């Protein structure tokens, strides 16, 4: 469920980046304030554990598929929300860089979906409430299971919202939700069972580990309101700045670095339209979920039939030629390099 760069718009990617960066800064500040040098190596090594454990799979009976540990929830239980959020961000950064699993621009979205929800929503509001101050095996199992399921549902919903707001994919909101939520319910149950079992295993073998984790962050110290405030502020600032840039540029979706002088007529047609669609999407999206469905008809027709089909074919021919030129340049450069 990693978002990909190809599916998001710069505005969505940018807003999520700033929000996530704000949260990372805030969490890092909290870790520093704790002044516990011990924690930093522990975080790194546990991140590597999550990474390594995701490579171990078990077979799910009667389905032919396999499951593995998800991460966010178990990290929060072992490390507390702030440290867990940072570790989750690191795991996703390494996955993005080395396995291209989720892109660089989508990194903000991914860290938010898989880190923010389990660490700052599910852990304090669900897991801690269920487990309380006197953990028993049953409470720990129940808390981890429900926590993992809800965390994944929220994360999947985040993916849906980010994709729909970006408007690159045509999937209507309702269809996408119907596709995503049940799949992630299944994944969530598996992840919940694994998390619950591993946490219980640790609790039975070495109860002091969980107790230490719980005591190092008394629940009163975790200030959810502050976290949310940082988040909202960051998002509002980012959203405001980006939309200011966007609106000062007829192109709608990107920042205004350059004046759009000498632009193709065809392009400006399209751009005005896109920016209108963008505004429409922002204003009309929430009150009416059905909006997206009717979009393809209202959108594609008025703009494109006006375009001379000759132009589009020229564009296609030109595109293929450009690609060939690019490959030739590459081959030429490599040959020169090898000769040198």
């Amino acid at each position, binding site marked *: 469920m990693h978002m990909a760069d190809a599916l998001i718009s710069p505005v969505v990617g940018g807003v999520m980046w700033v929000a996530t960066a704000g949260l990372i800064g805030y969490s890092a500040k909290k870790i520093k304030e704790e002044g516990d040098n011990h924690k930093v190596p522990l*975080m790194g090594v546990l991140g590597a554990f999550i990474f390594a454990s995701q490579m171990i799979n078990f077979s799910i009976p009667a389905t032919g598929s396999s499951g593995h540990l998800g991460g966010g929830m178990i990290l929060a239980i072992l490390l507390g929300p702030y440290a867990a959020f940072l570790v989750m961000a690191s795991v996703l950064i390494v996955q993005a860089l080395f396995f291209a699993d989720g892109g660089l621009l989508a990194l903000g979205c991914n860290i938010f979906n898989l880190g923010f929800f389990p660490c700052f929503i599910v852990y304090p509001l669900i897991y801690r409430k269920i487990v309380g101050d006197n953990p028993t095996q049953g409470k720990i199992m129940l808390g981890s299971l429900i926590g993992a399921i809800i965390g994944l549902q929220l994360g999947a919903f985040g993916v849906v919202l980010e994709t729909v707001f970006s408007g690159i994919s045509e999937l209507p909101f309702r269809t996408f939700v119907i596709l995503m939520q049940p799949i992630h319910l299944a994944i969530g149950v598996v992840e919940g069972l694994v998390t619950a079992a591993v946490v219980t*295993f640790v609790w039975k073998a070495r109860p002091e580990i969980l107790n230490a984790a719980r005591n190092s962050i008394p629940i009163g110290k975790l200030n959810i309101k502050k976290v949310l405030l940082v988040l909202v502020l960051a998002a509002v600032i980012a959203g405001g700045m980006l939309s200011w840039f966007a609106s000062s540029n007829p192109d709608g979706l990107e920042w205004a670095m350059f004046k759009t002088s000498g632009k*193709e007529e065809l392009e400006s047609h399209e751009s005005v339209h896109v920016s209108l669609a963008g505004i429409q999407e922002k204003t009309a999206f929430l009150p009416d979920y059905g909006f997206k469905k009717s979009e393809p008809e209202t959108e594609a027709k008025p703009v494109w039939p006006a375009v001379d089909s000759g132009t589009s074919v020229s564009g296609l021919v030109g595109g293929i030629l450009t690609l060939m030129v690019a490959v030739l340049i590459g081959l030429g450069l490599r040959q020169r390099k090898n000769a040198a």
Partner: protein
Amino acid sequence: MNNIGRNSFDIGYMDTLASGDSPLHRLDPRAKLITTFIFIVTVVSFDRYALAVLTPFFIYPIVLIALSGLPAGYLLKKVLIVSPFAILVGIFNPLMDRGILFHIGSIGISGGWVSFISIVLRFMLTVTAALILVSLTGFNAVCAALIKFGVPKPFVVQLLFFYRYIFVLSDEAERMVRAGSFRAFHSGAMGFKTFISLLGNLLLRTLDRAERIYYAMCCRGFDGNIRIIRSMRITYQEIMFIFGWGALFIFLRYFNVPLKLGTFITGLLK
């Protein structure tokens, strides 16, 4: 070698690539980080029907791969491995958006197919750019650049720890899985119970290891910082790299080169 071994081998291989020596490898990591970002943001800023206009952007990965001697086939294979999610979400476009955009001969091409192919192109461009960044720079240098950009220290330090221990823990996980599979006479996939006790033991060992690492580091004077011996300097070359590519991306963003070229060629054919 099982799956786990291959994964950590993969990361190790990309680090080997990063230790190569070419003018591009020697560039300051900050320059490569900034340029990659400009590239990705420019590529994703096109509207959803952008198709031909995206093609000139392939010049960036192609030139970088050619000049640095990175193995193109290997990078392409990695791109293909991760493509399913983008393709899965994108493949609905042809179903939802059936309005005909243009005709090639008598075949009508619907908007959905155009936007689907546009997603695939974006995907290839953004993913290769990220992979090239890390195989030209290496993870430690990326982290050093992050510190220079003002990312909080505790975050970067644990990121460096994390990266170092991926290899150790992957090896450990691999050994455990191998041992388990020997004892089960290679009886196929692992059951839930085995899986949990394996994972739980790995976790306990990990926690003990973290403890030992911490004490060992305290003995060596660890004060919460990791110092990286690598001087970073922004010189004329770095500035040329950022502004040269940046200017090209913005030019390609606002001037439809393929359309001009195509009009010229089809004009000749008429």
